[in-house]
């Protein structure tokens, strides 16, 4: 085994040399691929990415099953998440025992107060969390970006009017505002989504405005004006794409926050109405049964925790990847 001396030297520090190669290859990438490569290198961001992927797949499958197939899949192969079951109510998870009986493999996480399987209800609650989290945040990002970009770019009285309006919304406690909106327009899922979207708008409007104030002074904006580009076009092509990175980060984190808000709403009885399963709803149901079966509360709590954490980890990873100051 005659090893050439160079290889032997490199063998002294195998970790650093391979990391160096990875750096080189990442530097050659541009735009999205660069960001993705950065996230892949970041362990916690990768964990967040995996959590979100799994949760999203579950959400899509359960959305299709509940909205289009009327729980055909769940009913045929598992339990119906909404219909009352004949089974024992408030069973503990498998391997544990309480005054109602011992946990069995047929209900791994136990049952709720109506004897419905807890696992199937938590799984089918995913779609509400993701649907509201993503759609409401998307709504907030779109409206907030437009308001913030217009406000920052034009300045003057347009800025004053838009910013004062946004600050007024911001000043009202978000939960009270959403509850007020739902009380006025009805306790429907879509009203909840729009309501949460509205309370999210100010965050993005203010965030992107501060970025736009920086970007609009760049020379390429003046260059674009000098060649006769329309304001609308400058906003859409030059200002917003160059101000969007912090919005992407905040948006990812905000999905997690909005999932929490919706869980809170459902817990208070707003949002999705029973018997449709949602995490906040399950938590609310469990309140009266915490002593005989604490697991009834713990499992939906874990579902919320893990999902929100997934979005937070990915958001943090995105922030590191998109912030040029961190790419030493």
């Amino acid at each position, binding site marked *: 085994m005659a090893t050439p001396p160079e290889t032997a030297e490199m063998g002294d520090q195998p970790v650093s040399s391979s990391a160096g190669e990875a750096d080189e290859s990442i530097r050659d990438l*541009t*735009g999205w691929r660069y960001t993705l490569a950065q996230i892949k290198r970041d362990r916690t961001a990768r964990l967040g990415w995996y959590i979100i992927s799994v949760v999203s797949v579950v959400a899509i499958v359960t959305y299709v099953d509940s909205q289009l197939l009327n729980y055909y899949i769940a009913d045929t192969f598992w339990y119906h998440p909404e219909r009352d079951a004949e089974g024992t109510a408030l069973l503990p998870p498998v391997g544990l025992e309480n005054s109602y009986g011992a946990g069995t493999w047929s209900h791994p996480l136990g049952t709720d107060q109506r004897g419905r399987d807890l696992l199937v209800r938590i799984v089918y609650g995913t779609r509400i969390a993701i649907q509201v989290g993503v759609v409401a945040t998307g709504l907030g990002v779109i409206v907030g970006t437009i308001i913030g970009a217009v406000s920052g770019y034009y300045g003057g009285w347009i800025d004053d009017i838009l910013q004062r309006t946004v600050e007024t919304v911001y000043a009202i406690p978000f939960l009270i505002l959403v509850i007020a909106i739902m009380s006025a327009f009805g306790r429907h899922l879509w009203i909840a989504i729009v309501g949460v979207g509205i309370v999210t708008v100010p965050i993005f409007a203010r965030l992107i405005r501060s970025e736009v104030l920086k970007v609009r002074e*760049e*020379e*390429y904006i*003046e*260059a*674009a*004006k*000098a*060649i*006769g*580009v*329309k304001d609308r*076009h400058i906003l859409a*092509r*030059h200002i917003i*794409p*160059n101000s969007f990175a912090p919005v992407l980060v905040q948006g990812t984190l905000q999905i997690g926050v909005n999932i929490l808000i919706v869980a809170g709403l459902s817990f208070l009885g707003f949002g999705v109405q029973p018997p449709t399963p949602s995490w906040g709803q399950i938590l609310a149901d469990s309140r009266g049964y915490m002593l005989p079966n604490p697991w009834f509360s713990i499992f939906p709590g874990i579902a919320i925790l893990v999902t929100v954490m997934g979005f937070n980890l990915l958001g943090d990873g995105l922030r590191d990847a998109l912030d040029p100051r961190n790419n030493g």
Partner: protein
Amino acid sequence: MTQDPLLSVQNVTTQFVTEEGIVRAVDDLSFDVHRGETLGLVGESGAGKSVAIRSIMRLISSPGEIVSGTITYKGHVILDRSQGPDGEVRDGEAMLSEAEMRSKIRGREIALIFQDPMESLNPVFTIGSQLREFIEINRDLSNAEAKAEAIELLREVGIPEAESRYHEYPHQFSGGMRQRVLIAMALACKPDLIIADEPTTALDVTVEGQILDLIEQLKTEYETSFIWVTHDMGVVAEICDRVNVMYLGELIEQAPVDELFHETKHPYTEALLRSIPKPHETTGEFDPIRGIMPDGMNAPSGCRFHPRCPDAREVCMSVHPDLREIDDGQNAACLKYDVFDADYDDSPPLVVDENGERVPAETVESVGGDD
């Protein structure tokens, strides 16, 4: 010089309202640009060169404002503005609207090349998409045609492997290459006038030479007129036909390039030419212009250059010279010429007092007498 000028700038004044007061960055500026000529606009930092060219494009934004003047270009009235006695600004009826400026003038008729090629391209889009976008905006071409045109333009300004570089981002280009891209962008609509705002200042000398050669070549090919803003007299000598020298927002000398260098009229221009570093000089022999350019807020009375002028006399402190013809085709604003009839020859020269200020001779003597 008898034909109608391509661009005519008359008495343009642009001011900035700041908390400390009003700064006239461009004061009563008048000059013409003829077809096919390259006009140099020269001055120190802060002389108002950049504000002057942005005024031509009407790209002055708050707190700056063009308060008066007329600018005509090929029969279009770019600016026709006058200030009434109440200080209110009135626009003439024939003046182009902001939308017309955008759709008719900017980019299509007059293009602007900026100083810093590093900052003038949007970092998030490829070079090709920015160039193509610009061509699509200003010319009615389909996507594919615009792309072909963009690649052709890149090739024309000397970018090798234009097809593959079309898909690269600005940060993958060197400074010289980016300046070529900006020139390609300026050429895209075949404008008759290109205004270049110190386009080679940020580049090193060899690249600067290449860019100047490229401009020279494009000038003969397209017969484009240029306004070339610079503080580099070497560049002026190389490419300009006529030169305007600015000091504190005012034009102080206008001359064809040879006369400017060999029969310099204004003391400021002389000082500017003397201050060019020469290879045989050491730093000790170096002859910079004394003092710094005064603040535009409290511009000196009389001739604005008098605090720094080696030829200044007492009369220069009180009489403000306008631009007058000294020699055939050569204008200057300096009282030492007979056309001003300001008693310059009988006026005593200024001396330097203990504060380094330039004052009339008697005041220093009287101060000394009191001690």
